[in-house]
């Protein structure tokens, strides 16, 4: 019995779903004819190609491809969550609080993702980057986001 190549199994499945989803969505647009293609023709074809490719990857994984034994890395939840939170905080705080708080928050949160960073170190780095942001983006490049805003 072959071992299933897990990465290919999941990846193929993901592509199959993405392809079917795209094809389904594209089927709502006008299809047209080969001569006069509607907006739905090309994306529908792409969706089906993607689904077929995904299916092929999935079937290939069942045959147990020579799995190159790569060292499995432990999940890095702290880093992942902090980086995502850093990016998201720029969008949220930029909307409700302005450029400077958004800058501070994004750098501070992202920096906390590294295990060697203490909150103090992250705060200092965030403060320095806020200063850089003030000089480079607000003063020199005249970014449109206001420095502070309330609500």
């Amino acid at each position, binding site marked *: 019995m072959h071992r299933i190549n897990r990465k*290919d199994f999941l990846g193929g499945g993901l592509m199959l779903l993405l392809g079917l989803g795209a094809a389904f969505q594209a089927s709502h647009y006008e299809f047209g004819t080969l*001569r006069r293609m509607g907006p739905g023709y090309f994306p529908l074809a792409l969706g089906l190609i993607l689904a077929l490719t995904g299916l092929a990857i999935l079937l290939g994984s069942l045959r147990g491809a020579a799995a190159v034994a790569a060292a499995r890395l432990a999940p890095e939840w702290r880093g992942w969550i902090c980086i995502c939170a850093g*990016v998201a905080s720029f969008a949220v705080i930029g909307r409700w609080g302005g450029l400077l708080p958004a*800058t501070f928050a*994004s750098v501070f949160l992202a*920096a906390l993702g590294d295990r060697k960073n203490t909150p103090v170190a992250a705060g200092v780095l965030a403060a320095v980057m806020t200063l850089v942001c003030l000089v480079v983006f607000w003063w020199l*490049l005249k970014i449109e986001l206001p420095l502070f805003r309330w609500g």
Partner: protein
Amino acid sequence: MMGRSLVDLWHGFGVALLPGNLMWSFFGVLIGNLIGVLPGLGPISAISMLLPLTYALHPIPAILMLAGIFYGAQYGGAIGAILLNLPCHPPHAVTCLDGYPLTQQGRSGTALGITMLCSFFAASVGIIVMIIASPLLVAISFRFGPPEIFSIMLLGLLAGATMSRGSPLKGVAMVVVGLLLGVAGTDVLTGTQRFTFGITDLDDGVELVALALGLFGVAEFLRSVNRMDQIAKPVRMRMRDMRPSRAELRQAFPAMLRGTGIGVLFGAIPGTGPTITTFLAYALEHKLARHPERFGHGAIEGVAAPEAASHSKTQVDFIPTMSLGIPGDPVMALILGALMIQGIQPGPQLITEHADLFWGLIASFWIGNALLMVLNVPLIGVWVKLLQVPYRFLYPSAVFFIAVGVYSTQNNLFEVWEVLAFGLAGAVFVALDFPVAPILLGFVLGPLVEDNFRRALLLSGGNMAVFLQHPISAGFIGASALLVAARLFFWVRGLRRGTPDAMTALLPEVPPG
């Protein structure tokens, strides 16, 4: 035709040497070099972060600056590879193999000096090839109609998808994902909103900068946070260390020539990425060497050949990008995107209609590569210091630069959410061993592919055979079929034998991209 090119080139030097243009070119090289040196940031991140800055510029300084950023970042990446064994940009992974051992032997100066010489030499050869080849290519490409353009793009996409490490099917899947992303937004012909899911911010389609920074910036940080081992060994570096001895030069010279040749060859084939080019150059040196066992222990040829290959490929890559509108790799796709944002449609008419831009760009390559040499001799100490910035300070700052960079493309915070979404998607793809570079290729070419596909079939009255009836188009379709067949053959044979296929065996483990 050559005479005409030389006159145009002379004019191009005039354009590139205008103080305003020269300044932006210099600025691009400097900033690109600076960003390229930083661990984890390659030319793609450098270009996409600075792309919004060029919106305010005229097309010529904008493109000169972007090209400057590109080769500056490329050279900067080699510094990280040689001094710290950190391949910031996948093509440099192979430079690490012999560059880092040279550093361990205390010969890092020699390695950097050779790299600089090779990049200048290879770029010069690439430029000469550009001068000779582009008018010829233009003459041919004027006979390109929609069927030909569709077919050559198909070839480019397939080459981009399959000429990478691992399963060719995964590459194809990623290209299709990119094409689908390119479809999103308002359909030009009918005004239908496709894949926007009622989000009005998506009406103009997916933002190129957000996609690039998500896939190559955020995804890269997600992958390497807390996993990047940085050996911050203080490296002493002085200017005169960088001058290689005569014996070392003699050793490196043939390798440099061969590497340059490989780069030129692969630059002319659309879709073949820079990584595969550098690996082939290295593999060739290894095969030809009288003492192959020296490789991996600090062989000068192992640094010279791949670096020469990557730089000559870079230059030659501009030919299909500018004259046919077909980018050879993701970086070229970004530059193509930048041109389109400036309202310049790449294609055969670009060289005739925007002659000042095209020849100015070629001239600026030469000037820029000379600037790179001049800059790096005195600044090498600064770069060495920069290399020692710990990753834990670097990536949070980069997160901010990415966020503010995508915001400024449209002055819209929605782009920040986009970058996050693509970052997460990219990290998932990379974790499942999918190559992400083909996504960018598919995204940029997507609208062009669809447009030319529709037009070709409109003209032929819905007859699919049109792609085979036009001889040039049939040639490209044939080449595509051959490529797919050959790649599948080697892949399946590899699976049968239980050994990695030829292509995979050739390519050591590298970061995706």
